[in-house]
């Protein structure tokens, strides 16, 4: 209460200045009048009374000044004067101002972009007490991998047995087709347990949400909750949508409500459009199978419960489950992660946070480099202003007055530069969030300026103001009244000043070396990935995903639909061959059952071999270019009724039947425990996951889509020409002609899928591009700074050089002398930079692929770039110095 009043009074002092002055005058006038009245009452004449009263009041202006001081107005007045003076000064030297502001904006901009993006990734869920939200994930003893899902049965046991949580919910993302008014949208939906919204403690924006009373699995009633964004986008935010019937994957569903605004689901980076009961999205067989990790789990910690306690309580339950269900739960553990930090999903050693910190440090380095440049500008100008400062001191300015003036000037520049940088940076973040669409991944980033980001930027502004203003301020405070008035300034005196400036230039170079090395390491990782032999032919293949299930095709209809697609595509003139598959290489979808050779124990997580399984059509291997080494691929003879057959890769063959001929052998899988698969062919090992590159291939088997049902498939089309993307329109038109209602989406080339997707090399590529831009920016800033220092040195030493030349020094030696000076800066900067980048490289080792953090190629390349760039930059000033005319310089002054 009191401090708000104080703030109000301060603000009033700042902005209602005239009003305060008027009130002060009126208050004193009133006092004067009462005095006059008194004297008149005592019998004095009007004139005498007035005279006496005025005398008694004394120095009224002085009193008023004391009142102003009591109100803290004096400092405000002084600051106001400083600001006014700074602005005038900055307008008088527009080039200096523009250079300083622009440089600072370039430094702040990347920070604003990075902070906004990081903040949008790590923004707390819009739920009450978001800090209580916890994510559970499954681990296996002795295995560093984290599985993002729990077996549903395990989830139920943790929900009932663990005392650490007040509530717990199971969910998973599932793509669906929603049809309303004859139009079908492909949506990303969240299948939720009945406790989902109550765990999050959310209230509906309209209608109601799915409730625990609907059933533990969300109930079997076909009900759907729309996201606020989709509701607004598709139904114009109309309340009448509640109670309306829509079709989801062809089945009738009732819209029961709308989720609150700003809630985009519980998977960061993706936005959920709808919520429907888990029971309708997954089969009960899958949910009840303890060996299938089927659901993601979010839980709410009880108040005052620490994460550590929760982990201990979970471990107790895990050990109990291990005893009760040894076949599935031996060695299985569940670990709790704070939801706000485990973005987008729990990872080992909080890699997301580490990466965020790393990038913040890199952009911070750019700001430091920019600040060093601006500081250089201020110092150079400070020399020219020494006289002005001396005059100010002579006129009675205190040391504090000078320091304050310098800091205010830095603050004005800082404010201008930081605001410009923040605006540009925010725009860039918004641009990035929309442009950085990954193939097959509808990236969603809620990019907006929040208080946290604003506070971070304000802290950066203050820090850079101090960096820029403190040194000039300290220097100004040392000015004596006479020192600089007496003689003109050639500034050959300041060896220390030279050192500071060279140190700054070297530090800038060191900073840009770090950025360039980091960029180089990412580029080398990307090269390593791109040059790896994937075991299939990535060129000339176009992908197109098709989802007839979204409009209600049953499995039989879907199968004949794909047969027609297959025939129609193969008839297209530019198409060499075509096949379908459920998953794409380096895609986000996968199926990883456990397998065991027939005759062994039924495969489970404890008894089987974890493998990749793929569902493909007969021509798949031909289209993707993986040779069938022995046996055959699927034919039309392999049908739903015939014995189940599989094609395995070399690794799986070697793992299941070492030393034996795998052809004709049979195996069983945990996902289809009643079937036995006969091996009919062996294909060459191919790399479908990033983790496989540079290491052993994952054991993998393929089964025929003719023997399994899958409505959502991706068509692989091999084109005759080298540009498969030119087929895109024809392929889409061909499928649409067969049924215009069926959604066709994610049409792009296999090469793009591999190079740009999150499962492929998109992360490495993005990191290389971002650090490339940052590195180039840092290098440019550092070179400008170094150039400034060098030309300043030359200017300051003109007389000395003139004398040396007059005494017979060859111009060539002057040239070399100055170039050596450049190199000394560069060598110092590059060595410090390389040392620092070893540390940076070590910190980002986890994100590198096939390259060591001290990669000699990268380090050497960066050293060469820096060496040649600094030589180039040093050339001009050195050249100028060598051409100094000794007569002229000696005549100067």
């Amino acid at each position, binding site marked *: 209460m*009191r401090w708000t*009043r*104080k703030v109000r*009074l301060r603000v009033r002092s700042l902005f209602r200045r005239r009003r305060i002055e008027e*009130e002060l005058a*009126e*208050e*004193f006038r*009133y*006092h004067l*009048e*009462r005095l006059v*009245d008194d004297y008149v009452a005592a019998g004095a004449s009007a004139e005498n009374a007035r005279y006496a009263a005025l005398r*008694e*009041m*004394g120095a009224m202006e002085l*009193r008023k000044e*004391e*009142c*102003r*001081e*009591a*109100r*803290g107005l004096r400092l405000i007045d002084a600051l106001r004067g400083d600001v006014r003076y700074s602005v005038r000064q900055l307008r008088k030297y527009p080039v200096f101002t523009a250079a300083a502001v622009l440089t600072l904006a370039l430094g702040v901009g990347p920070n604003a972009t990075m902070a906004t993006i990081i903040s949008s990734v790590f923004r707390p869920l819009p739920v009450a007490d978001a800090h209580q939200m916890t994510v559970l994930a499954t681990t296996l003893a002795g295995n560093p991998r984290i599985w993002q899902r729990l077996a549903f049965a395990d989830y139920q046991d943790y929900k009932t047995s663990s005392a650490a949580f007040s509530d717990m919910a199971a969910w998973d993302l599932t793509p669906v087709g929603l049809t309303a008014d004859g139009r079908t949208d492909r949506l990303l939906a969240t299948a939720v347990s009945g406790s989902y919204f109550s765990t999050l403690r959310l209230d509906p924006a309209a209608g109601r949400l799915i409730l625990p009373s609907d059933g533990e699995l969300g109930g079997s009633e076909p009900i759907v909750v729309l996201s606020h964004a989709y509701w607004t986008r598709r139904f114009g935010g109309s309340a009448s949508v509640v109670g309306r019937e829509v079709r989801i994957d062809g089945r009738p569903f009732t819209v029961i409500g709308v989720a609150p605004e700003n809630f985009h689901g519980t998977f960061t980076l993706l936005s959920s459009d709808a919520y429907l009961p888990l029971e309708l999205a997954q089969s009960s067989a899958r949910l009840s199978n303890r060996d299938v990790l089927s659901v993601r789990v979010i839980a709410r910690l009880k108040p005052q419960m620490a994460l550590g306690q929760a982990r201990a309580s979970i471990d107790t339950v895990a050990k109990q489950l291990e005893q009760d269900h040894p076949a599935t739960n031996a060695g299985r553990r569940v670990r709790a992660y704070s939801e706000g930090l485990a973005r987008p999903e729990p990872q080992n050693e909080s890699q997301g946070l580490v990466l965020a910190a790393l990038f913040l440090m890199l952009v911070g380095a750019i700001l430091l480099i920019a600040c060093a440049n601006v500081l250089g500008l201020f110092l150079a100008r400070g020399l020219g202003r020494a006289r002005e400062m001396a005059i100010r001191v002579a006129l009675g300015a205190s040391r504090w007055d000078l320091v304050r003036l310098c800091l205010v000037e830095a603050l004005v520049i800082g404010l201008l530069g930081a605001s410009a940088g923040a605006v540009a940076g925010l725009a860039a973040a918004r641009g990035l969030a929309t442009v950085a669409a990954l193939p097959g991944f509808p990236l969603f980033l809620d990019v907006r300026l929040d208080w946290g980001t604003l506070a971070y930027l304000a802290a950066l502004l203050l820090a850079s103001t101090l960096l820029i203003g403190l040194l000039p301020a300290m220097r100004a405070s040392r000015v004596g009244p006479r020192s600089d008035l007496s003689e003109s300034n050639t500034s050959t005196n300041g060896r220390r000043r030279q050192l500071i400036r060279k140190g700054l230039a070297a530090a800038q170079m060191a900073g840009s070396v770090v950025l360039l090395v980091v960029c180089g390491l990412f580029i080398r990782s990307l090269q390593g990935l791109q040059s790896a032999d994937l075991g299939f032919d990535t060129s000339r293949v176009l992908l197109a995903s098709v989802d007839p299930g979204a409009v209600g095709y049953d499995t039989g209809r879907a199968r004949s639909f794909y047969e027609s697609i297959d025939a129609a595509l193969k008839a297209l003139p530019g198409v060499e061959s075509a096949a379908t598959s459920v998953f794409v290489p380096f895609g986000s979808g996968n199926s990883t059952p456990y397998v065991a050779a027939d005759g062994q124990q039924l495969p489970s997580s404890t008894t089987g071999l974890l493998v990749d399984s793929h569902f493909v059509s007969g021509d798949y291997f031909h289209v993707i270019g993986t040779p069938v080494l022995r046996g055959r691929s699927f034919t039309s003879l392999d049908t739903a009724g015939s014995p189940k057959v599989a094609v395995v890769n070399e690794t799986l063959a070697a793992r299941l039947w070492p030393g034996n001929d795998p052809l004709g052998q049979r195996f069983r899988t945990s996902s289809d425990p009643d079937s036995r698969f006969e091996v009919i062919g062996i294909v060459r090992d191919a790399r479908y996951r990033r983790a496989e590159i540079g290491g052993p291939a994952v054991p993998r088997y393929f089964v025929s889509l003719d023997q399994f049902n899958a409505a959502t498939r991706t068509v692989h089309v091999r084109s005759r020409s080298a540009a498969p993307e030119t087929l895109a329109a024809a392929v889409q038109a061909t499928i649409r002609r067969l049924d215009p209602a069926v959604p066709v989406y994610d049409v792009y080339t296999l090469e793009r899928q591999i190079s740009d997707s999150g499962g492929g090399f998109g992360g490495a590529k993005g990191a290389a591009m971002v650090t490339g831009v940052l590195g180039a920016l840092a290098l440019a800033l550092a070179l400008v700074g170094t150039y400034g220092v060098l030309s300043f040195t030359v200017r300051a030493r003109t007389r000395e050089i003139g004398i040396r030349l007059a005494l017979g020094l060859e111009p060539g030696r002057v040239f070399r002398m100055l170039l050596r000076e450049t190199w000394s800066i560069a060598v110092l900067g590059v060595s410090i930079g390389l040392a620092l980048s070893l540390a940076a490289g070590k910190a980002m080792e986890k994100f590198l692929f096939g390259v060591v953090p001290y990669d000699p190629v990268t380090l050497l390349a960066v050293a060469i770039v820096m060496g040649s760039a600094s030589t180039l930059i040093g050339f001009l000033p050195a050249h100028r110095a060598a051409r100094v005319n000794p007569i002229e310089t000696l005549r100067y002054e």
Partner: protein
Amino acid sequence: MSKPTDLVQGTLDLLVLRVVALESMHGWAIAQRIRQMSNEQLRVGQSALYPALHKLEQQGWIEAEWAVSENNRRAKYYTLTSAGRKALKTETAQWERLSAAVSLIVKPA
């Protein structure tokens, strides 16, 4: 008129708070009231009074409001705030301690 140095440092604040605690009043009236209450012993001139008032207002112990005075002119009236009431209590206690201590020393035994 007596100078502010006649008063012990900080005492003026206490007097002002005490007087304003009675009712809200303007600067002139405060000076008059101090004079009356002290049996004409203490005279506070505007030179000390107004800076003190502005300081107290800035501290949030009193707040100001413009109103029409007894002689039909606009005057700035000061009122004690709840924070001021608290301050008055502690300042009074402190003053009593101080004056008792001084009396102990000054009074002949």
